[in-house]
């Protein structure tokens, strides 16, 4: 019981991080119908900018201010990354045949990984736990269920960020434009929405969310390398598919489920196969429930 509760806490924290990345996938897929393969690597870039900012600010400011600075700088710079990636690798290929943007995205992903590897080295980079301590939720047979301050901070930051994001999408003219382009890009353009600008902003927002996820991944695990984007990217994509691709609440729900599955699988089955478990879920969901939990059914027109 206690063990299960601990896995639940761990899984939810992890799931929050996946959910944030998944939102970026699902937005981009909804709006231009492509899998942004480089999204996981933007997440990795975000984590690296986070570690660089934290290292630069060590001893200069207090920990909460340093974390806030890391989150904001990382989100802002990754927004620039997302914007540039779309401009360089995807926009020229808009309207081209299906394979071209996917290959371009794979190329971009390889490029980003090796850019970080060659510029910062292939070594793992570690930081100490910045928010030590926690609260004990319950104690049973000598097993202590702990909710660390770090986990709590991750959950709170995610909820705040998702709150802001939901407000933007549902309440502002910008969000309305995004939803309009997602539903029907041509019609939105006819009604005077600048489609290209909206797509750019979608990439910026998605990348900023991935960056925040990256910084929190860094805080949670304390160790990153240039390759973390690949696995996290596939898992987040799985989350987006599980929740129903194109659906924003679905992405968060999917992320939480994937986080829970991963935590419980590691806790009760073999840790070695935890990634295989997530990949299998991806395959199973796509086979039997292609529209996911909260997605719309796609009607095939002939």
């Amino acid at each position, binding site marked *: 019981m206690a063990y299960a509760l601990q896995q639940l806490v761990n899984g939810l924290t992890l799931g929050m991080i996946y959910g944030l990345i998944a939102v970026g996938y699902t937005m981009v897929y909804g709006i231009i119908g492509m899998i942004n393969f480089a999204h996981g690597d933007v997440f990795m870039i975000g984590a690296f900018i986070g570690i660089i900012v934290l290292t630069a600010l060590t001893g200069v400011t207090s920990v909460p201010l340093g974390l806030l600075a890391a989150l904001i700088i990382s989100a802002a*710079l990754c927004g620039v990354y997302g914007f*540039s990636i779309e401009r360089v690798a995807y926009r020229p290929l808009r309207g081209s045949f299906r394979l071209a943007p996917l290959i371009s995205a794979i*190329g971009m992903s390889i*490029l980003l990984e*090796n850019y970080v590897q060659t510029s*910062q080295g292939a070594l793992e980079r570690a930081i100490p736990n910045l928010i030590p301590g926690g609260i004990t939720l319950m104690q049973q047979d000598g097993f202590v269920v702990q909710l660390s301050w770090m986990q709590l901070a991750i959950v709170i930051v995610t909820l705040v960020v998702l709150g802001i994001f939901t407000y933007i999408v549902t309440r502002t003219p910008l969000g309305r434009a995004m939803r309009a382009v997602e539903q029907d890009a041509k019609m939105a353009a006819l009604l005077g929405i600048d489609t290209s600008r909206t797509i750019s902003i979608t990439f910026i927002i998605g990348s900023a969310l991935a960056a925040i996820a990256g910084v929190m991944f860094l805080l949670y695990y304390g160790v990153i390398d240039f390759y973390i984007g690949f696995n996290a990217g*596939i898992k987040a994509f799985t989350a987006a598919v599980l929740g129903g691709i194109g659906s924003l609440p679905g992405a968060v729900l999917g992320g939480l489920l994937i986080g829970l599955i991963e935590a419980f699988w590691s806790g009760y089955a073999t840790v070695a196969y935890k*990634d295989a478990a997530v990949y299998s879920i*991806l395959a199973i969901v796509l086979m039997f429930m292609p529209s996911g939990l909260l997605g719309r059914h796609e009607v095939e027109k002939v």
Partner: protein
Amino acid sequence: MTRAVDMLKDAAAVAFFALLIFAPFLGLQLSDNDAGGLSLSARPALLAAAVGLTFLARIAMLLWHQYRPAAPNVHIAAAAQKSGKYIAPALLVFALVMPFLPGLPNAYIDLGVLIMTYVMLGWGLNIVVGLAGLLDLGYVAFYAVGAYSFALLATNFGLGFWECLPLAGILAACWGTFLGFPVLRLRGDYLAIVTLAFGEIIRLIITNWVSLTGGPNGITDIPRPTLFGLKFSMAGGPGTFAGFFGLDPHPSQRITFLYYIILALALLTNWVTMRLRRQPLGRAWEALREDETACRSLGINVRNTKLTAFAIGAMFGGFAGCFFAARDGFISPDSFTFMESATVLAIVVLGGAGSQLGVVLAACVMIGVPAMLQSLQIYRMLIFGAALVVIMVVKPRGFISTRRPTVALRKAKEIGAELIAQGRG
């Protein structure tokens, strides 16, 4: 005048973005300090150089767009198409005599073996992606199945390369069918992601099933191929190639032999593909690529057509894997990462999906050029990734994007790239 100012403004804006992008990674460097923590050092010169280069590159690009010579491409394209008839036979002759060119170091024959392996993988994947239009990002799984089948059969049951080659192909084909079943209904990007997941699952199983596969340590002492029982060993003596023919043992004999094996396997792949394209099965593949719904309504069995594409593509991947294990004598899960799948898919797409000659050209460019850049080893993958993006942006349909119809009334004419629907899955 204003044009020049606009240009400078544009380039300055791009350079500003480059500054933001490069600042954290090129401008700063993380390193471990003595206290066990991290410290940062600044690299202003590198950052300035990167931003400056971006600025100049942007100006060069804008100038090129403005003063680009007015479309001489038509003639070039026509000329290339005419000479295209001769390129393939010329390449074939070159491939056949390559090992016997005087003064060629062994390293080049080795490189030839490597390129030819990728040509074969490319041709195999071309059946799935280029002909049947099924986007497969997990092709390396079948390569791994072939390699591990041979390695396990050889080390556990003492079978040789030539007995295992067909077995590896058959096993890979079975896996192709087995993994093909679940994804029959999926299209396009979804298919790509699920095949990627399957590829990763197979790699994870190979890595973690230590008692069978040796885990991350891999399998060593895989027997090398023999020529009708003659070994290529450096020891010489009876029972070896050198001993039988009364030659001095030399490493180049083994490498040349390997080269001809993979050349034969690759040509077999090509021959089978070319023949199949003229048969109902191949035509059904191409019809499937163009329009699945139309195929269904015309009574083509979509399920069987897709599964045969997966199975035959996987079979050639299995052959290539078997050869790979025999060539190196050692395999480990590290050789079967997603990067391999991406490389092979990149070769197929860059060549112009569906074009056999395109695959050869793309394999030479994508494998040959990085191998030549040994001095730039650490930048190899960086350049590879950048090249993928650039080539896609410049030529989204690949090197050879025109296509000759398989069936035509009177004379077959080349079809322009824009008319071909490919890879919708």
